[in-house]
């Protein structure tokens, strides 16, 4: 249980080096925790990917490109 409760902080990059190494070596050896880790990681990636699917990015990209061109940026052909 001690390692399992470190999985969220591990995935959030919020652990000190020593604990992170302990988590990694435990996950390499323990199928149960590894399976739980894979599940949690897939969940976080899915949440992030879902947020990337929003509309309205085309107009924002045009705006950013216009601003960049005023700095001398030339979009390659």
């Amino acid at each position, binding site marked *: 249980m001690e390692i399992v*409760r470190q*999985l969220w902080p591990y995935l959030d990059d919020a652990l000190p080096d020593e604990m992170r190494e302990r988590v990694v070596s435990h996950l390499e050896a323990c199928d149960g925790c590894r399976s739980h880790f894979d599940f949690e990681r897939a969940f976080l990636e899915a949440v992030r990917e879902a947020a990337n699917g929003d509309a309205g*990015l085309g107009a924002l990209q045009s705006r950013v490109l216009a601003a960049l061109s005023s700095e001398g940026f030339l979009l*390659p052909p």
Partner: protein
Amino acid sequence: MQGTRTADDVAPERDAEFARLALPLLPDVARVARALTRDAANAEDLVQDTFLKAYRHWDTFQPDGDCRRWLGAICRNTWFAQQARERWVTAVGDDQELETFAAVQVHKLAREQGVEEMFGRLDLAPAIRAAVERLEPSYRDVVRLVDLGELQYDEAARTLGIPVGTVRSRLYRARRQLQQELLAFATDAGFDAVRPTRSPLPTGGERHARS
């Protein structure tokens, strides 16, 4: 000026590299900016500022570096620099033990119901977005900042003016609520059981340990 190459000579290469490495990451920067600002107009300003700074300082980007992280750091730093100094509250206790136990139970249930691999499915995205919107506002704020905005716990705490321990407990509870909702959704939708695939363990450092 020494040498034969002038700034004009390298500009096309530089722009091509910027267009290839940085510009495709606009959706990622936009997600981080929306999470930080929680306001569409401010988010667009922040995205623009981020790309302008990145372009101006492109020479400092290491060619073998992680451009997504680099842009994310510029975006966050820009936002924090724009914010007035906010009160800092130190950590208090939380119920992490309870949430850890609950998270394990959700995973166990997902495995038993044959939907352990549900998060890899694209058709889950609308359900995820809807579930995030349904979260209680104080939970949704933390999910937005940490999971979408890629803030550290202490940065989220400073932004919201709450203790780090509260960020953690709200975050873990919000994630569990999301998982429970998505588990119910996936089960109702009749997602097929798929054998779990094992991906390599990260060596650490990369946010959310993407492989």
